[in-house]
């Protein structure tokens, strides 16, 4: 029997601290959030993977996971939401892998962006489009 997702989630919690960033008064923009997180360091590509459905089955709860081996922190943003900040995951030295999975609500079709800060201070970024559709006519 493989380790189930449930077991994996319990096991994984030890190494991850998640903080939600939602600010109900002033929703920071993607640019503001990114520059705060990166400290102005330009983002590279590669070394970070977002896994999300191409088309959301239910826009109210979209499974998104992000993996960036060697990261000390990963910030997840939903660019098209009224409040783009989703979460920032920080990984301590005891973290077995730098992977986080969560479910997010997407108001509309938009890019989900993940930015990772590496131990050496470098930044990598990835984005993927998730379509939120009315659906109903596949044949």
């Amino acid at each position, binding site marked *: 029997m493989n380790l*189930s997702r449930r077991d994996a989630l319990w096991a994984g919690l030890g190494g991850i601290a998640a903080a939600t960033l939602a600010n109900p008064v002033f929703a920071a923009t993607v640019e503001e959030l990114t520059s705060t997180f990166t400290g102005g360091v330009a983002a590279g590509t590669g070394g970070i993977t977002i896994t999300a459905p*191409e088309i959301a089955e239910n826009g109210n709860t979209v499974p998104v996971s992000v993996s960036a081996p060697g990261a000390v922190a990963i910030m997840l943003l939903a660019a098209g939401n009224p409040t783009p900040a989703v979460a920032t995951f920080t990984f301590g030295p005891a973290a077995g892998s730098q992977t986080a999975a969560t479910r997010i609500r997407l108001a509309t079709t938009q890019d989900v962006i993940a930015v990772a800060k590496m131990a050496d201070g470098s930044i990598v970024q990835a984005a993927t*489009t998730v379509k939120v*559709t*009315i*659906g109903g006519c596949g044949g």
Partner: protein
Amino acid sequence: MISRREFLQASLAATAIVGASGFGNWSRLAAQQALTEGQLLQFDDFGNVTLIHITDIHAQLKPIWFREPERNIGVGEATGKPPHVVGSAFLDMFNITPGTPEAYALTHEDFVALGKTYGKMGGMDRVATVVKSIRAARPDALLLDGGDTWHGSMTSLLTKGQDMVNVMNALTPDAMTSHWEWTFGTQRVQEIVENLPFAFLGANIFDAEWDEPAFEPYKIFERAGTRIAVIGQAFPYMPIANPRWIFPEYSFGIREERMQEVVNEVRAAGVDLVVCLSHNGFDVDQKMASRVQGIDVILTGHTHDAIPEPVLVGQTILIASGSNGKFVSRVDLDVRDGKMMGFRHKLIPIFSDVITPDPDMAALIDAERAPFKDQLEEKIGTTESLLYRRGNFQGTWDDLICDAVRSERDAQIALSPGVRWGPSLLPGDDITREDIHNVTSMTYGQVYRTEMTGETLHTVLEDVADNLFNTDPYYQQGGDMVRIGGMGFTIDVSKPIGSRISNLALTDTGEAIDAAKSYTVAGWASVNEGTTGPQIWDVVEAHIRKLGSVRLDPNTSVSVTGL
């Protein structure tokens, strides 16, 4: 189509290109009235592995008319490539002479006249004859069903798919994958699968709560000393295109990374050949083949395309076997040292007047139909016009259904789903209750009546258009444009979402649709739970009874630009 250069690039054995084309020279023979079952089945055995593929039967047990699309627009990289080539361009591309049986089977050109000449196609008793004949030559052949098997007829609806399950069990496939099967609900699918004497595969079917694999992803077959992995890929957009609430326990999706993992897993297990039995739709499969490494053959389904030759993507061959029992594909492969070295393929057209029905299967089909015979065959009306659906936009069946919905539900505008199933009827044909079910049958057929603003209508059209014309195949759900009664529009297929649709206007008055104004709208096949209203087949039947004889004028309400 496949050039020698492409073939060599694929590093497959060059000898196999001989006979790679699925249609032989039998058109000449047909013209001489000499087309025989033997010629349709003729195949020079090749290599050591045989795959038999059938898909999207949509519960059509009996021979049918099925007009292929007049419009099947490809966007982005798919532009101008099969299956986005229709009519005379298709005939030119595959070197098919107009007026021949191939032309009739594969295109819409001159459909009525050729239909009268060459007869109906399909019928599971004829399919059984073809399958038995291939198995006689190649006892180790694998028979693989691409899904959309249990749904699409009155008998399949009344028996919750049991008639098709019984027929397929008699045909003894080795594996299947799924789409409309799920519209019978989780419990019914589980009940059938529990007793299914063959594999029900779906590498992309996951438990919705924990996001873990929920069904067998693949099965490894040992045939003639060769180990063949068949990986199932169910329809990815199940919970979006069909009502999620009917199968809430499951999540689907393309899950490209999962497909790669599963391919790696079977390769690591040392299989000689990797086959993907897919219900992705052709364009999605084409993209997947270019990104997932290690699949030898993709047996495609969902988009109902019949392509007379395999399409090569890198070292993967894609086989498109049509729909409704019109075709069976035979693919012979030379597999040696864990590699596919070459192939020979034939898309076998099931001409019901040429291929002898298998007597056992014919008897089984009649037995399945017997309890419902009177209901099925009751004549409701006749048609003076060709009735068809398949195509990117409105067919005459859709016009008739939209007329019925508007008139019976007293609405300004009717919406009807752009599904690709639904056989045709020729001018002069009776319209029976079964014929109506063949274009409407489903477990969520309630005809709702509501009000929508012009803005909402516009949003709906933009949304559906993007499912069809997004240039990235992974964002396409398959199916065609939603059908509309009482309202026309212009669509620029080259534009992005939000700017494709314009000129919305009521067809009765020519009055432009006002974004802020409300309109009465009736439609069917809503994905929302709790939809109420009469069933669509009853609505259409009531309408046809009033008309007696159906006649439809050409519909010019949709203008297509950006081609």
